[in-house]
């Protein structure tokens, strides 16, 4: 397309946005609302899975070691456990450290003396699993190892937690799926109506001998711009609201894990922009196509 034509097409798209101002505003609002919902639902999903992950990562396995184990054997055992499938971190709490910790938590200064000089605490490993679902397997493997006295993990509670976190994930995915579907539907239907209302215009363009490309371009650009403006507005709303909410939760409900990764939030906002622009442009192009079959 010649430069003059390209410029003409761009100006026409802008003019048409301006002259069909109410239609344009309605479309922009639709895009904005849809993308706001979509953006919120994606952040909701991110947070639910983050919460699930945080809860699961708090499940630990406590391994109590035999009294007779030498420190070299302890290190050897630690290495062995670290090599097990699904193990993330193994930390050692020595019996000396354990009594100090306990003493501190009791607010006492002379616990060891009070106990008659005998330290009742065994040496202990704390194992963190990469995935809560692997805790049980790891625990049973460790139980059989030489030098291990007792293995403890949240039996009973763990199964319930996994059921709960799975639910949390599915709800998040469900919300995203529902809102994606709804927003695609809303945006495409709206733009389709927009294009349909200009059937006459398209018809006239064809009558004066406009090629299909020449007709399609202004609509395509218009859709793109509607998507762009709507997306930018949605990004401002979601970005501001989420930042505020995130700060609020961090300040008041410190125990709640919140996704506060700036890079991730930016990525979500950027995807919203892409979604808006591509949905706007594609919906326009497809709606026009219907009228271009000669």
């Amino acid at each position, binding site marked *: 397309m010649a430069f003059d034509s390209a410029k*003409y097409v761009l100006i026409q798209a802008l003019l048409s946005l301006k002259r069909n101002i109410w239609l344009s505003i309605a479309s922009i609002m639709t895009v904005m609302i849809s993308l706001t919902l979509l953006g919120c639902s994606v952040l909701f999903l991110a947070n639910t899975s983050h919460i699930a992950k945080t809860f699961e990562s708090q499940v630990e396995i406590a391994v109590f070691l035999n009294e007779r184990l030498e420190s070299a054997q302890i290190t050897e055992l630690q290495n062995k456990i670290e090599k097990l499938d699904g193990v993330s971190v193994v930390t050692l709490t020595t019996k000396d450290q354990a009594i100090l910790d306990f003493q501190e938590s009791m607010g006492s200064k002379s616990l060891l003396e009070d106990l008659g000089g005998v330290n009742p605490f065994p040496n202990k490993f704390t194992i963190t699993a990469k995935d809560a679902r692997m805790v049980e397997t790891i625990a049973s493997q460790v139980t059989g190892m030489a030098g291990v006295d007792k293995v403890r993990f949240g039996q009973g509670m763990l199964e319930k937690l996994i059921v709960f976190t799975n639910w949390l994930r599915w709800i998040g995915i469900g919300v995203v799926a529902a809102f994606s579907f709804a927003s695609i539907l809303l945006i495409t239907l709206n733009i389709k109506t927009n294009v349909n209302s200009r059937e006459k215009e398209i018809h006239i363009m064809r009558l004066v001998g406009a090629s*299909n490309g020449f007709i399609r371009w202004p609509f395509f650009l218009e859709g793109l711009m509607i998507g762009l403006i709507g997306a930018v507005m949605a990004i401002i709303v979601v970005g501001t609201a989420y930042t505020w909410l995130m700060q609020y939760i961090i300040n008041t409900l410190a125990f709640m894990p919140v996704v506060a990764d700036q890079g991730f939030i930016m990525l979500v906002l950027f995807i919203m922009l892409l979604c808006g622009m591509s949905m706007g442009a594609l919906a326009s192009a497809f709606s026009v196509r219907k009228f271009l079959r000669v």
Partner: protein
Amino acid sequence: MIKLRNVSKIYPNGARALSNISLEIAKGEFVFLVGQSGAGKSTLIKLLYREEIATRGQVFIDNINLVRLKPHQVPKVRRNIGVIFQDFKLLPTKTVFENVAFAQHVIGKNKHEIKANTENILELVGLGKKKDSFPSELSGGEQQRVCVARALVNHPSLLVADEPTGNLDIETAWGIMELLNQINRLGTTVVMATHALQIVQQMNKRVVRVEEGKIAEDTSGGAYRFGF
């Protein structure tokens, strides 16, 4: 210029609009298509600018068979045909100037050429002063003049008009007819479907009468005297 050979048109709903019509129109002719509503005039006109495609037979414009035309070739053929409608079909969101300019942008003319051409043709149809108005701000006659200007601006060799005076009072209608006559004298072939008996009788041109999808009469030189 125009050659229809054994043309029939049956719409998808089964309505038969034209049956086995043959017609030739030479370059530079001015032809009226007359006949009752539903006789097939509009269908015949639509076949000429390939809004409709003949079910059977051939439609040639300048030796191009419109029936065989591939969809992507249609725009190019249409650029050589100006079309005028009873309901004007102007773009409501574009000004008079933009409506006329649009037809030229479509074929990729440059900006300066378009500006000069548009201003000239708007002067010719007597709308030089209304170029920045929107169609809704114009009278019916003025809107039809814009439509004529748009149809002519690319110098088509054929001008087809479907009841161009149908929505106009008689005086305004004559204004449009004078314009068409003038264009015809400059060499453009004109085919016009109309109900306006008075105009047909006074213009003294070839008249083709369509009746129930067939050509009932084809008289040249104002010999036409029948009522319809």
